[in-house]
């Protein structure tokens, strides 16, 4: 494959960032918008070309015939040295084309282009419009660089860059306190997680002497062997490395207990939430595990951690989502829960040995869900943006009965809800069904647990849907809400259309863990039962929230403690506040600063003072008075004389 197209995919957004970042303040809003949208449009077209070429050209660079079908190959388009630590440990910047990176190219550029387009309407007239587009370009560049990384350090580099662009975009409304502290929180929490990632990389590269993904994943047995059975605190070093790397993924993908930044990140502009905090950046953790999947597969305990953390997070986030008032927060917790689905799916992938289940089914399911989720969650967020744009509030309490005023938003939002709830024929149904199959194959308990979470998903999404579009008919006065302008409407319609049909993509043909295409099939029992359960949950939501009534309050009063805990997100934020503020800030930093000023510096000052005092003390000896000198001389002479006499005697 020509090097030009892949290189342009990375360079256009980077160039746009520099152009808009440096020259933006001299441009008109329209100009900045055209540059941003056109650049992303071209990038999207190029990405589609690359992805389609990869999947369909049948070129021998990309696939090879093996018995029983074809195997898709990993193809390195380019790979240049960037920083050589030692002869083997070299950070390279490159472009790796394989099924998951090609899929991610499509996902990122599609959503990013839609968001660029949508922002034209949403951000109209905002101060810093050019800066906004510059940051979006920076983000797109970093995210694209992340998914095409050829080695783990390149991934870490772009990982940090997406973190920084996320920081800049969350804090876009920098004059708001809440936005500033949210951006700070997001950066620091993910930075803390990245510490784990970094140490994981250091451990892994120390034993394997390479950063390269292909070297690592093509022969996981060799990776295992290279550690030579070394252990640390009871676990093998490979487990440590993988769990620490996963910690980085937990931070970015908002897994418990590092999830606390994501709900706050909703302080950013809504299109940003759609792009970064729903569809692309937050799935980086999933992508990371998927990228290193063969190594995770040989280390069962690390995979177990992935699955268990995912399962707990999925349930937790779903519970919290049932009680939130801010519609973006509901969506944020829903995102956490759905990403946890993908994590669980990866965690259970390696052990799917049952007959009905293709080996590594969970891997395919996870990627499938990543794809469909990106589409319908971006749709939901953009829909939420349209609602916020119309009523100027994030709370559902300010909404209600909006179906009459905003038909396009209503229909597209409903499609998004049906997709995430797992109702056929919408896309979420197909991917979630695969995940549930994988979970059941791993352990029936896991399957049941995830089915319950899926039911909760259907419930809270329809709770949200009804509260926004039905529930009550408030008087909107002169500000009658209306559908957004076409720049915002087109992305909604497009994404809704994708959410309707994406489920029919034969995903197994494209993305599998061993890159061998296979036919996916629905597990009828699981499919039917999960649809029935989802419908029951939707029915429950309908009963409770379709019309304004007192059932929700009654339910809340029945379980006040549980409701309180859910509403306050199980007090995680307070716990973190306590640790950072009370313990680290007040009990570590302050004492250290005090110690430095008073003890260390005090000692240094003491040397000076003592020297000073001593000189003052002995100063009187140099009084300049002849009489006193004579006196001392005489005294000395007498003492010496006495000593001599005594010595002689």
């Amino acid at each position, binding site marked *: 494959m020509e090097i030009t197209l892949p290189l342009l995919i990375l360079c256009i957004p980077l160039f746009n960032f520099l152009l808009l970042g440096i020259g933006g303040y001299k441009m008109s809003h329209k100009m900045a918008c055209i540059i941003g949208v056109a650049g992303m449009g071209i990038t999207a077209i190029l990405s589609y070309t690359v992805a389609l070429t990869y999947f369909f050209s049948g070129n021998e660079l990309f696939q090879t015939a093996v018995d029983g079908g074809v195997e898709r190959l990993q193809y390195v388009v380019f790979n240049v040295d960037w920083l050589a630590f030692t002869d083997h440990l070299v950070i390279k910047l490159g472009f790796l084309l394989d099924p998951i990176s090609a899929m991610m190219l499509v996902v990122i550029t599609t959503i990013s282009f839609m968001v660029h387009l949508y922002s034209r309407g949403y951000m109209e007239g905002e101060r810093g419009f050019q800066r906004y587009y510059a940051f979006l370009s920076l983000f797109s560049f970093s995210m694209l660089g992340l998914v095409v990384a050829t080695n783990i350090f390149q991934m870490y580099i*772009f990982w940090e860059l997406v973190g920084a662009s996320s920081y800049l975009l969350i804090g876009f409304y920098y004059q708001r306190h809440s936005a500033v502290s949210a951006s700070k929180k997001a950066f620091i929490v993910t930075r803390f997680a990245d510490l784990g990632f970094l140490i994981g990389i250091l451990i892994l590269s120390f034993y394997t002497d390479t950063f390269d993904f292909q070297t690592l994943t093509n022969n996981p047995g060799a990776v295992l062997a290279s550690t030579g059975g070394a252990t640390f605190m009871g676990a093998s070093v490979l487990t440590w490395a993988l769990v620490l790397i996963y910690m980085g993924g937990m931070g970015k993908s908002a897994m418990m207990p590092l999830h606390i930044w994501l709900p706050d990140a909703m302080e950013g502009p809504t299109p940003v939430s759609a792009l970064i905090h729903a569809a692309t950046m937050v799935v980086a953790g999933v992508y990371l595990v998927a990228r290193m999947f063969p190594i995770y597969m040989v280390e069962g305990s690390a995979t177990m951690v992935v699955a268990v953390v995912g399962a707990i997070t999925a349930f937790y986030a779903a519970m919290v989502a049932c009680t939130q008032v801010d519609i973006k927060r509901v969506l944020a917790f829903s995102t956490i829960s759905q990403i946890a689905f993908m994590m669980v799916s990866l965690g259970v992938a390696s052990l799917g040995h049952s007959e009905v289940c293709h080996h590594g089914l969970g891997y395919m399911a996870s990627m499938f869900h990543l794809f469909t989720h990106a589409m319908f969650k971006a749709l939901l967020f953009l829909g939420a943006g349209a609602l916020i744009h119309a009523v100027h509030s994030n709370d559902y309490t300010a909404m209600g009965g909006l179906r009459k005023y905003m038909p396009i938003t209503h229909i597209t939002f409903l499609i998004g809800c049906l997709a995430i709830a797992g109702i056929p024929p919408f896309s979420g149904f197909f991917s979630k069904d695969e995940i549930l199959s994988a979970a059941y194959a791993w352990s029936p308990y896991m399957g049941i647990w995830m089915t319950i979470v899926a039911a909760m998903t259907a419930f809270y999404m329809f709770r949200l849907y009804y509260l926004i579009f039905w529930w009550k008919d408030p008087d909107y006065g002169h500000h009658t809400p209306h559908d957004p302008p076409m720049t915002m409407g087109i992305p909604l319609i497009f994404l809704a259309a994708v959410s309707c049909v994406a489920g029919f993509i034969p995903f197994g043909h494209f993305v599998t863990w061993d890159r061998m295409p296979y036919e996916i099939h629905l597990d009828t029992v699981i499919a039917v039962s999960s649809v029935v359960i989802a419908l029951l949950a939707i029915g429950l939501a309908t009963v409770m929230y379709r019309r304004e009534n007192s059932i929700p309050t009654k339910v809340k009063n029945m379980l006040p403690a549980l409701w309180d805990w859910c509403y306050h997100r199980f007090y995680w934020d307070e716990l973190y506040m306590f640790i950072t503020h009370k313990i680290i800030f007040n009990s570590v930093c302050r004492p250290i*600063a005090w110690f430095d000023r008073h003890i*260390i510096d005090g000692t240094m000052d003491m040397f000076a003072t003592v020297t000073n005092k001593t000189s003052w003390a002995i100063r009187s000896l140099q009084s300049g008075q002849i009489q006193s000198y004579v006196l001392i001389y005489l005294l000395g002479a007498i003492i010496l004389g006495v000593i001599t006499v005594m010595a002689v005697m």
Partner: protein
Amino acid sequence: MFENPLIYFVVIPLLMLGGLALCKNIKQIRAVAVAGSVALIGLSVWLLVDYLAKRAGGATDPMLYVDSWMWFEPLNIHLAVGVDGISIAMLLLSSIIVFAGSFASWQISDPKAFFLWLILLSTGVFGFFISIDLFTMFMFYEVALIPMYLLIGVWGSGNKNYSAMKLTLMLMGGSAFLMLGLIGIYYHSAPEGGQLTWNILDIVKNDAIPHGWQSFLFPMTFVGFGVLGAMFPFHTWSPDGHASAPTAVSMLHAGVLMKLGGYGCFRVAIYLMPYAANELAWIFLVLTGISVVYGAFSACVQTDLKYINAYSSVSHCGMVLFAILMLNTTAMTGAIMQMLSHGLMTALFFALIGMIYGRTHTRDIRLMGGLMKIMPFLAVCYVIAGMASLGLPGLSGFVAEMTIFVGSFQHTDMFHRVFTIAACAAIVITAVYILRVVGKLLFGPVQDKHHLELTDATWWERTSTVTLIICVAAIGCFPNFFNELINFTFSPEIFKVIGLN
């Protein structure tokens, strides 16, 4: 003598001093300062290119452009010069910071005297980096330190007399240790009956310092230079000194002078006494490890911008010494990269703080807020400096820190591992204090209504900051160039201590 290009690093500043003495008004002074620093940058760049060409041509000596002129025969003192990739990188750094510093002090009061002292200081710095004779090296070192007292005492702010005195006395205390160490090295520089020498290259060739003496002289020299490198617990001059110093002096001091410490530590302490370095590194590793973490924690609760930066420098410079003590090629290369990176970004920080202080007349972050709206250019530069400091890829801090971490992790024992991980953890704390300042100072609502009338950067301020930002980004984007320039010296053939490991 004048056919050796290195000597011009001292000649140009001396000519500048002469020129400044003749200047009649501020315009001429500025012209001399700018012309001189441009000439220095030009010379460093030429040297860099020529050096790389020579290396590409197969020159394998540890140092190139080596020359030596007798200065004082009875003690065999020479003016000896010679450079390798590391010194060239340092020369380049120094000339860029002198350039940026000249622009940052565009409107200083009593410019003639100020620039005279400033250029004298840079003479010392350049002389230090080109010297390979321990005695002249030490002389230049002192030449660089003394003007600091006057620059802070006269042009400083706040509690300037105390700070100037403290800084000078502490650094002099370090020099005392250092002098002892250097004299000790001299008297053991040759085998029994041989000609004693101050020349670094000859001392290494002779390899005559007995191991017993090494374990006495190594701590002497390391602590001597370490004081200037802000090693715990000898770092307390740094916060006070920086807080009181005028902008350009802070820039030069944190940007270049503190590098003298790190440079001296490896060029003298470790290079000349590899056995003791190998034996005793762990003691200093503990101290510098503490510096890294402790500096970062202290910075978290400061409210004065310069104190924050001074403590951050303690942390970052601690990282330099920490990495040097890891005694392997990768980590030591990282240490030099960290010196370059820290020099540039701290200079940038101090320049920006000076510019902000010049407008708001306060450095207390509690009294400021929302500057992004008022002075967007300076604020954006501050964010970039902050991002470099917390190690964002694409800027210099990241490559330096990663090289250090990867290098440090090559040690397999628990002791090194624990300290390496603690140092890694410090980068999280760095993020905390950087974002705290950025969030408080630049973002949020405007705190003081009077600040709304303030103006953004002038052209000379822009020149100063943009120069530094370009350099920070250059290192961050093309690290391998610097990596290769530096790590030639850190090969086991040249740096014996690496082979010992």
